[in-house]
């Protein structure tokens, strides 16, 4: 046989170790840092937006749930609605007592507005009330509303008929009273001694505007007896707070109007304060969908950006592809390198996006006094989305790079 024996056996195929593919793809990205950063940015924004939306929505929900839990879903609020004549209706004087006699009711408390101003002293212009009001309160108001006392004590049987006042959290702040040290404030024309300062009744939120008991936080509470004596205040309750057995809320809710005011039950309004929070939670989730949609659009644009950058890279790096083919890279090796570059690019963007979204969530939630909740499915979903986008965006450019004939790729540009 005349055919010469080969000097060296020929390997079946050239090889490209996995670690080397990774190293090569990484080098391809680090050689063009600015471009890498900018093309990953689209994914970062998209994933970041989605993580932030989910995180904020979840943190907000958690905050609302905390508030609902703190208020208790078994709290009912009874007030007089509009009368037939168009004027304000009033609840009967004995409404608190009759409602308290309903079987499943655990406790009842009430407040009523007194026609007087509370002022720090007699030098202040009496018309500048600062939005504060004076109210009478039942002695069990704080317990009934799951409230708490910041300093001093609340009104009790011994202080309902003396000039003693308990300030709501906002009222205390606005009047500049921070300690129970014998300070006196002017209620109407009379000096009252501050005996207590309350915490906010809805202390799960810092947002004064959305708190459910903003009017109570802005009130100065005095006893009903002294109010009647000094200001000729009526004994009719304005708002009654009812705690019921959680299992019978709806039943209690139905019988309250007839019980509280048998003569005109249609004028009695009964609400469950936590319903408002639940409605708020439902309303915010519709916005979530909007923002998630925007995040998805950003993600799509980011993916297209990566595909675009990779297509340009394949054109620009034609010579590199030719060189690698000359050095022994197979088509599959070229494909792998470019696909992995696209994947790394989007995963880089995805990780940055998750971090960004989490940071935004943490900052915002903290500023709102919420507990920070970043749902794991947002992190996981964000990374999976990034990988999927990278694979999709990198596939076409990688196939194009691999299809390039070596002689074509080596032609000088």
């Amino acid at each position, binding site marked *: *046989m*005349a*055919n*010469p*024996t*080969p*000097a*060296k056996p*020929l*390997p*079946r*195929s*050239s*090889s*490209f*170790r996995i*670690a*080397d593919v990774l*190293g*090569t793809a990484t*080098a391809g990205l*680090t*050689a*063009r840092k600015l471009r890498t950063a900018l093309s990953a940015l689209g994914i970062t924004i998209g994933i970041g937006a989605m993580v932030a939306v989910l995180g904020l929505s979840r943190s907000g929900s958690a905050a609302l749930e905390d508030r609902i839990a703190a208020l208790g879903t078994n709290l009912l609020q009874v007030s007089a609605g509009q009368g037939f004549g168009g004027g304000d209706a009033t609840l009967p004087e004995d409404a608190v007592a009759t409602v308290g006699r309903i079987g499943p009711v655990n406790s009842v408390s009430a407040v009523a507005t007194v026609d007087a101003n509370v002022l720090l002293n007699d030098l202040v212009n009496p018309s500048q009330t600062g939005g504060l009001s004076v109210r009478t309160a039942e002695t069990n108001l704080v317990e009934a509303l799951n409230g708490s006392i910041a300093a001093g004590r609340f009104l009790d049987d011994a202080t309902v008929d003396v000039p003693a006042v308990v300030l709501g959290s906002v009222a205390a702040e606005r009047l500049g009273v921070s300690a129970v040290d014998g300070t006196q404030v002017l209620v109407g024309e009379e000096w009252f001694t501050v005996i207590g300062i309350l915490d906010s009744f809805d202390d799960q939120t810092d947002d004064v505007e959305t708190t459910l008991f903003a009017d109570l936080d802005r009130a100065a509470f005095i006893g009903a007896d002294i109010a009647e004596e000094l200001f000729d205040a009526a004994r009719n309750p304005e708002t009654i707070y009812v705690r019921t057995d959680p299992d019978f809320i709806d039943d209690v809710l139905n019988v309250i109007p007839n019980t509280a005011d048998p003569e005109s039950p249609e004028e009695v309004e009964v609400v469950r304060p936590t319903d408002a929070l639940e409605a708020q939670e439902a309303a915010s989730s519709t916005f979530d969908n909007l923002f998630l949609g925007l995040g998805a659009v950003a993600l799509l644009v980011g993916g297209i950006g990566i595909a675009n950058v990779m297509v340009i890279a394949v054109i620009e790096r034609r*010579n*590199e592809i*030719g*060189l*690698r*083919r*000359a*050095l*022994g*890279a*197979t*088509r*599959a*090796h070229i494909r792998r390198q470019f696909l992995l570059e696209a994947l790394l690019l989007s995963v880089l963007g995805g990780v940055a996006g998750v971090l960004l979204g989490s940071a935004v969530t943490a900052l915002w939630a903290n500023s709102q006094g919420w507990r920070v909740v970043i749902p794991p499915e947002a992190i996981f979903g964000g990374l999976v989305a990034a990988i999927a986008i990278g694979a999709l965006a990198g596939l076409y450019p990688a196939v194009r790079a691999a299809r390039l*004939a*070596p*002689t074509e790729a*080596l032609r*000088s540009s």
Partner: protein
Amino acid sequence: MTTVASDSTPSAPTEPTGPPALQLIDVVKEYPGVPPVRALDGVNLTVAEGELTAIVGPSGSGKSTMLHVMGTLDRPTSGSVHIAGHEVSRLSDRRLSAVRSALVGFVFQQFFLLDGDSAVDNVATGLLYTGTSARKRRAAAVEALERVGLGHRLHHRPNELSGGERQRVAIARALVARPTLVLADEPTGNLDSRTSESIQALLHELHQEGATIIVVTHDNELADSLPRQVRFRDGSVEFDSANGTAGAPSTTSTDAAPSVGEPEPTELQLDDLTEPDPTDGP
């Protein structure tokens, strides 16, 4: 055929020990068109191991196509190409890649260095597709750079190197896998005359050490400085200094002792051809 120990004189003739480094038999390369363009028209060429050969000709003479066919970057339309005894003209893309990674080294006019990588990393790329470990690649790259006189420039990036130094890095990259054949495409084409001379001297040095090098060039001065010239015109060999003729399979030669140890022209066994890859046609 001449084997040259690295410390002996290159001209010392010895017994033939293996197949020629490169053998082309009746190679035709046609590019489709109306009428088809015949870039190579029945080329026969044998290059023995250890030879330093110039393939020279004006532009359009077919020498670029010759480079691609010799380097297995392109397949001939007909005829056969043997590198170190392996028939490569009908191999699949995968196997051709293996031939390039193990048997052929390339030096390009434009160097084609990776801008982001240091000299040693660029040279190590020459072993990237051979399955060699990163540590061994690096060690071999340092050795190859020392061999081309760039031992002091290991960690410089291409943009910190002169043109001549860049081409030395590219030459080191072509040598690092210890290929059977080094193909240099206009290696001095982008260099000034003084630098060209130093690269020319380096090629001679490497030849002395036993490397088989084919330089494709249109530069007659460079070609004439090399031991053997093969002149191309219109797609065929017009003149081969090894036998003074064109056409028939050339005899091998060494620079100082032509016609010594000349092997029989090898017969081609057609049934030996490996599977063609239909997807890889030009």
